[in-house]
């Protein structure tokens, strides 16, 4: 499906009646609020609204195209995606907040103007609206899956025994069940918190999602009605025969729509995916640039040269945002992995916020192996809970006794859904600023081709030697090592435009450029028989276009 601009004239009339001062930092927005915020951004001349697709439940997935200056001219583009996962519904507001900030700053801020006058930005704030919707529904629950359910408990029935709110508190939480062989025990200093069993605790628990044994098989909430997660449904690293991955890669309308959006926009050079996974936290060494295929399959990227570039970007990201990065996480079947591994795009998976935990950082530092401290310490989970509660977040539900019809006496409670994944309101302004600074900084990284010299020299007899120098004004290479393998973006092309009757005597009809490092240049030569003017045309899908006329130089 090709994206098409959406008319929002009618909406503009409505918006003019809305208060203009948005709550700076209120990232968490339901579909309606997000739609209005999106419409507000498109009041700017810089932004256009595009349709990306429709979710399984019929919600619209939309994008913003943002560009200043000669916006119709092809130029490098960055795609920024949020709202791909249920627990990350809040980051739709962050992504849209970035868009809004840039439109607000365009007139005054030179760096923003430079970026938008030379770069196209595509924002897809909520790529998975069905999953994000769970954040705003009652009972409150984290529901990452939006696609069809399988038969997870292998009882020849599909999705018949999912989690439920059985104590009527409008939250689907956890049940802890006393169990001598349970794998959980209470934290010594905060007994609300359950941690994996260590030693020989007096009380052990088993954790079960809140629910009943709806299918009477002795197991509780083991076969939910939905299984497929959109951000596991992309082709790279697709986990076939895994319920969360789906029947096949791109079986979900959302994942297919995102793929089609990328395919329809070959100007995209870089992708930023906001979510729970982070490929900037610790960029791997990568495999050698010329690593051979094994059983006809190339070792997964990054290649070493590309990894070095990613590390530089990661370093800058950390410096500008103060974010030390989250967990790399399992990226099987994710959108970010598809963009990187199959499309060869510079792809940054960003987990923009996590609970600051100095103790954890120290723990992972210099403590000698095997050293034990005798005094009890708060567990990681308890520290996170304390941090949230100190900021007024009701992050724990407590444990409430409940007589379960099949499990007997249990307690229902545990961490409040979403509490640990969402930054408290006070954190949000700084977060937006850091991400904005990083995004703006990327403008200077993108590969940008330019014609640095275009000249001809008369050789006599009507023959001209034409020299054209093409440079890359960005810091990134025109194509990374891996992108030259995937070849999903066409090489840049340089060709001469000769006047009528002109003849090319030596040199190709057009030169393809596949390799050009950041800051580097390449000289091309032709021999022609023609009367000037001699035109030069430079075209690249993702690094700009230029046309010029050659000037004469002396012999």
């Amino acid at each position, binding site marked *: 499906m090709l994206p098409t601009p959406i008319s929002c004239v009618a909406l503009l009339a409505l918006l003019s009646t809305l208060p203009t001062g948005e709550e700076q930092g209120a990232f968490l927005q339901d579909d309606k609020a997000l739609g209005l915020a999106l419409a507000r951004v498109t009041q700017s001349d810089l932004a256009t609204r595009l349709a990306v697709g429709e979710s399984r439940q019929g919600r619209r997935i939309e994008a913003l195209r943002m560009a200043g200056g000669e916006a119709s001219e092809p130029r490098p583009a960055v795609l920024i995606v949020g709202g791909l996962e249920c627990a990350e519904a809040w980051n739709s507001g962050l992504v849209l907040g970035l868009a809004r900030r840039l439109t607000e700053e365009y007139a005054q801020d030179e760096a923003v103007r430079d970026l938008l006058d030379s770069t196209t930005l595509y924002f897809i704030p909520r790529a998975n609206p069905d999953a994000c919707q769970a954040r705003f529904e009652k009972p409150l629950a984290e529901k990452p899956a939006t696609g069809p359910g*399988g*038969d997870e408990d*292998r*009882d*020849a*029935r*599909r999705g018949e025994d999912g989690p439920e709110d059985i104590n009527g508190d409008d939250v689907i939480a956890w049940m802890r069940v006393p169990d001598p062989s349970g794998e959980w025990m209470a934290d010594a200093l905060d007994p609300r918190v359950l941690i994996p069993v260590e030693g020989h605790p007096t009380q052990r628990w088993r954790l079960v999602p809140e629910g009943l044994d709806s299918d*009477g*098989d*002795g*197991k509780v909430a083991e076969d939910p009605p939905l299984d497929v997660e959109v951000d596991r449904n*992309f*082709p*790279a690293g*697709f986990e*076939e*025969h895994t319920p969360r991955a789906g*029947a*096949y*890669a*791109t079986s979900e309308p959302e994942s*297919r729509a995102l*793929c089609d959006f990328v*395919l329809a926009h070959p100007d995209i050079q870089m992708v930023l995916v906001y979510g729970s996974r982070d490929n900037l936290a610790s960029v791997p060494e990568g495999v050698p640039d010329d690593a051979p295929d*094994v*059983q*006809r*399959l*190339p070792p997964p990227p990054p290649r070493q040269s590309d990894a070095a570039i990613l590390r530089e970007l990661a370093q800058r990201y950390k410096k500008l945002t103060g974010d030390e990065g989250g967990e790399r996480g399992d990226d099987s079947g994710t959108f970010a992995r*598809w963009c990187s591994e*199959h*499309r060869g795009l510079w792809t940054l998976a960003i987990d923009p916020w996590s609970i600051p935990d100095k103790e954890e950082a120290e723990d992972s530092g210099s403590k000698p192996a095997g050293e034990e401290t005798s005094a009890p310490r708060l567990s990681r989970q308890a520290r996170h809970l304390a941090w949230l509660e100190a900021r007024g977040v009701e992050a724990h539900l407590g444990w409430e006794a409940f007589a379960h019809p099949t499990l007997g006496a249990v307690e229902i409670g545990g961490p409040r859904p979403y509490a640990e994944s969402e930054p408290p309101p006070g954190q949000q302004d700084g977060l937006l600023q850091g991400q904005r600074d990083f995004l703006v900084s990327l403008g200077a990284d993108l590969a940008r081709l330019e014609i640095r010299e275009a000249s001809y020299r008369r050789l006599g007899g009507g023959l001209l030697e034409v020299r054209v120098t093409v440079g890359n004004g960005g810091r990134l290479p025109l194509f990374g090592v891996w992108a030259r*393998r*995937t*070849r*999903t973006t*066409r*090489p840049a*092309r340089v060709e001469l435009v000769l006047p009528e009757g002109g003849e090319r005597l030596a040199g*190709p*009809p*057009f030169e*393809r450029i596949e390799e050009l490092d950041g800051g580097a240049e390449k000289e091309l030569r032709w021999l022609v028989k023609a009367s000037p003017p001699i035109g030069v045309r430079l*075209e690249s899908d993702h690094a700009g276009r230029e046309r010029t006329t050659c000037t004469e130089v002396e012999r």
Partner: protein
Amino acid sequence: MICLACLPLLLSPLLPPLQDEAGPQDGGSGFPGLPVGHTPRVEVAWNRLYDVEGLYAIFDRLVEAYPDLIEKRILGRSIENRELRVYVIHAPNAGEETDVPAMWVDGNVHGNEVQGGEAVAYLAWYLLENQGHNARVTALLERATFYLVPTINPDGRAHWFADAHTPHSSRTGVLPVDNDHDGTADEDPPNDLDGDGQIVQMRKYVPGEGNFRLNADDPRRMERVPPNDRGITGDWILLGSEGIDDDGDGRINEDGVGGYDMNRAWPSLWEPEHVQYGAGPYPLYWPETRSVATFILDHPNVAAVQSFHNAGGMILRGPGAEAFGSYPAADVAVYDSLGRKGERMLPFYRYMVIWKDLYSVFGGFVTWTYEGLGIISFTNELWPSKRRFPQEDGTGQGDAHFFDDQLLSGAGWVEWHPYDHPLYGKIEIGGFRSDVGRVPPTFLVEEELHRNAMFCLAHAEAMPEVTLSEPEITQLGPETYTVDVVLENKHLIPTRTARAREKHIGIPDIVTLHGQRVKVLAGGVRTDRFRPSAMELTEEQPYRILLEGGVPSRGRVRLRFFVRGSGDFVVRYGSQKARGQSRQGRL
């Protein structure tokens, strides 16, 4: 147990209505393959290959002649909006279409590999002509459905027939692709320079500067001059397929129509273009492939798959790539049994593993239907050229000319003739026509179709058929009993392949016992026929025994329920790939 020889007699009451309806032109005894005394109701010239309309017209006639047995459905549409048709063959007395195992048979996913379409049509025709007449076919259609797709790539087929092509071109679909990355799609195809409706070869006379010479006995044939240091050269060079540099980029014929491979598009072990040419940007990218996949996923009763390609004479199974590893031994045994039978039925066909014996294929169709869906699946590469000379090697260039000269009266060869090429100057154009090399000549088409259709029949007959024994009741005490039943599958293919079991594909087979005044105390599978206590008891819900492994190939599953109560009960068996069964009993 009914003896096979008696079946025609037992089935004879079914015959009269068909004979009556058929009228005097019906031979009345089907058309099993005997040349005397049989006349088909629908006459089809099986010594020809048909364009899309012609191929669909055969089916239309079959639908008209056998409206109760075959139904046309539309799977989807191609890029050029042609119908993707699936024909469903299902006998009314077989129960619901999806309650019985089904065989999927398709052809022509590669547009130029056309005779697969006729093979599918022949299979349909053979089944319909013989249903009610021939005991084997009648019995099969009482327990099996067929989903028949004569062409998955109707656009490619249509263009191969209508336009100038080589034997190898029009393999792709027709969605434009910028194969040469110059910003324009499909702008430099081969060109029928001389307008004779064929794309053949170009050669140029370059005295003393070539690497080819003409065969001394037959100047039509080009021979490569072996590399040497003695200055011996040829007088000719070969310039490839007929064409010009349409887009002026210095290359010829490098960006033709389409430019992808719909048999590299399927979801299991799919790899992108930089690993596997033609795969597209993601699995099932093209509407033809997605429509087919959706249909198959919606029909979990499909228990056998056959896909027809050309050429070479092969019965292929996966894995398509070494990286997959091996198939489970139990499934390989099923494959081997069918594959070896196929080798006997199909002279000069070899039973092969795709990656090991042919080449690597990532994202192939039959590898998806097995690896992804757990269905025993074959690809047959039709037309082994050895069929031309069964007694000798006969696969050289000279043999091709001999065959064409002597058996086709030279009709397959376009004589070298001069042409003034815009780039190469004076050249000659000539070579074998597009319908030579990958498809059989007329007089061998029918045999090829018949043998392959019969291989499908053999494969379909191997689909599981489960019988449920009468319950055997043994009293243990007051109102307490054991109820024993045995599931038996006499056929080669299990109800759940080892692959399906390992990967939890689909849903398990299930056996239940219900009775109004009966409580099932325990139940499970007996693991040793001689030791009654050797059992795997179900954990919960003992009235409901799940069989992840299904009913094995030519095997039995023994089940025992411990029950308490009295009165009637019913035992039911259900499976996605075998007809359900039930038996009643009384305590």
